[in-house]
């Protein structure tokens, strides 16, 4: 493959290859649909790469704890799963956050709750952005909408994880995992950051330990403050979003991931008909791009949140806007994927109603 050459890849392969190029040396995971192509790709590909570890764990619970062990040694490591499996990982993610072990977790979300189905959904938004497990913590949550972006964000996820010593969740769905798009793959990372905190055996130096048991309430409080300050730093520096056709928009659709792809198509149709509708697409779900969406409210009176879940991201939009603009939800849960045409009809009805009221 030549440098900067475009290759046609399936989503799961693109994510896997980008991870390996980012310096991921270990993959641990348990089969679950609709993300099996990712561990299968890793099993194939890692067999060709010396010094890498692929291990199919006996459960997601074991898998995330293997991630924890590998991360403790300073190794770049990832796992992937889908909604019910990611629920099982929550205990481990809480420990990763507490011990500040960098890690990358891919969640190819499916319809839920419970066993649900295997169709594309966005119903794990709360779980991903609110911590998900027990205790006071956050994970960085990245939500690509295109495969090139999935490649770039996967590559970046490992750097973010190391820089902030935090679990990073890359969130997608079966549509993204299965679809094929041309992508340019980044180079293999050569110089990875040194990790003086890694636990590798004491050598000749003093022995060290990493733990999350902090029985002294003041020590635990200090640790929580330390984490909180880190999260504040991330909230200042790392929000990412895309605005599309928002300059003169009267109404803006807010959507991420697959929903944003659909919404972009719908917005284009409405623009062709002369309706002033735009799209705001959060790329980081946590930190949520609150400032960027609030800035839009200076000229936009109405925000329509389109999510493939039933009222999750809409809460962050409302918090960001803080009453400055009208916010309405159009949710399609359960794994239903509406077409751009269908969505454009919904949007034009809301747009016309708004114009009528005005």
């Amino acid at each position, binding site marked *: 493959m030549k440098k900067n050459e475009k290759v046609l890849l399936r989503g799961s392969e693109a994510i896997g290859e980008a991870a390996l190029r980012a310096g991921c040396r270990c993959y641990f995971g348990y089969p679950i649909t609709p993300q099996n192509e990712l561990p299968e790709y890793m099993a194939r590909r890692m067999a060709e790469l010396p010094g890498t570890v692929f291990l199919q764990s006996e459960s997601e619970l074991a898998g995330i704890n293997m991630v924890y062990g*590998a991360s403790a*040694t300073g190794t770049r490591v990832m796992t992937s799963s889908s909604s019910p499996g990611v629920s099982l990982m929550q205990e481990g993610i809480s420990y990763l956050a507490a011990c500040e072990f960098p890690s990358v977790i891919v969640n190819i979300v499916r319809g839920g709750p419970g066993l649900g189905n295997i169709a594309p959904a966005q119903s794990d938004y709360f779980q991903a952005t609110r911590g998900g497990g027990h205790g006071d913590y956050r994970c960085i949550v990245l939500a690509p909408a295109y495969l090139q972006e999935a490649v770039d964000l996967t590559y970046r996820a490992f750097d973010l994880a190391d820089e902030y010593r935090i679990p990073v969740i890359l969130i997608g769905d079966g549509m993204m995992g299965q679809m094929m798009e041309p992508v340019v793959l980044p180079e293999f990372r050569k110089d990875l950051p040194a990790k003086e905190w890694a636990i*590798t055996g004491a050598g000749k130096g003093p022995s060290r330990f990493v733990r999350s048991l902090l029985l002294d309430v003041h020590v635990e409080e200090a640790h929580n403050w330390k984490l909180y300050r880190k999260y504040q730093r991330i909230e200042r520096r790392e929000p990412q979003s895309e605005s599309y056709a928002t300059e003169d928009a009267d109404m803006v659709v807010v959507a991420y991931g697959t929903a944003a792809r659909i919404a972009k198509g719908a917005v284009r149709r409405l623009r062709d008909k002369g309706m002033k509708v735009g799209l705001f697409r959060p790329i980081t779900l946590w930190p949520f791009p609150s400032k960027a969406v609030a800035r839009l409210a200076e000229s936009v009176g109405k925000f329509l949140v389109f999510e493939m879940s039933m009222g999750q991201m809409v809460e962050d939009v409302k918090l960001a806007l803080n009453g400055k603009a009208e916010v309405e939800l159009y949710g399609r849960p359960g794994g239903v994927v509406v077409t751009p045409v269908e969505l454009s009809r919904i949007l034009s009805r809301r747009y016309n109603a708004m114009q009528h009221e005005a």
Partner: protein
Amino acid sequence: MKGMKKVIGRPKYLKEVPNHYCPGCGHSIIHRLLAEVIEELDIRDRAICIPPCGCAVLAYYYIDVDMVEAAHGRGTAVATGMKRCLPDRVVFTYQGDGDLAAIGTAELIHSANRGESITTIFVNNGVYGMTGGQMAPTTMVGQKTTTTPKGRNSVTDGPPLKMCEFLSPLDGTAFLARTSVHSPKHIQKTKKAIRQAFQTQMNDEGFSMVEILSQCPSNWKLSSVDSCRWIEEGMIPQFPLGVVKQRQTEPS
């Protein structure tokens, strides 16, 4: 002192701090044995311990090696992740009966079955110590605990799990032994078994585990002396001591 020979001292890798264990508890003896074996095998530089959730969670205050605390029951999964990344280190978990034989059973069985080159130090005192004396998977039938006030009922609670025998048929297990720390003779045998388990790992032969019957006077509501007697008379008939499995390695 002139004319006197030092025959015993504090192990080099047992930190000089008072420990938090109850009087008569077996953990402090087992910690000392680990520190001695680590010194004798000269592996302090490359040993990594995964302490459990339970009384021994604070092992990092006492044993002078690198440690990473695991979630309850997940020790062998964490050890797997570490050892796969650092194959030349000596990685061992330290787990109690609840941690290993109840909540962590799946992780244990699969790590053992994969023949992970790790060692598990399994402290079996037949009771949940840190949480205040509830029934453990290894509690004796008839034994009273805070959650079996009339004694463990084998019909409703099942009989105690014998983990060494349970793991023995697995191809991945290379060394399994059950010992006890209720008398000086057995303490010496325990040390020998720990040494052998580490040696098994260093020879890359497969999974190794030492199950150690250990006193818990506080939760057994017995004196230290009576606790030792309970191991001898109550536990050993159920949990026979000795090497349960030692895989013969083929000469290379």
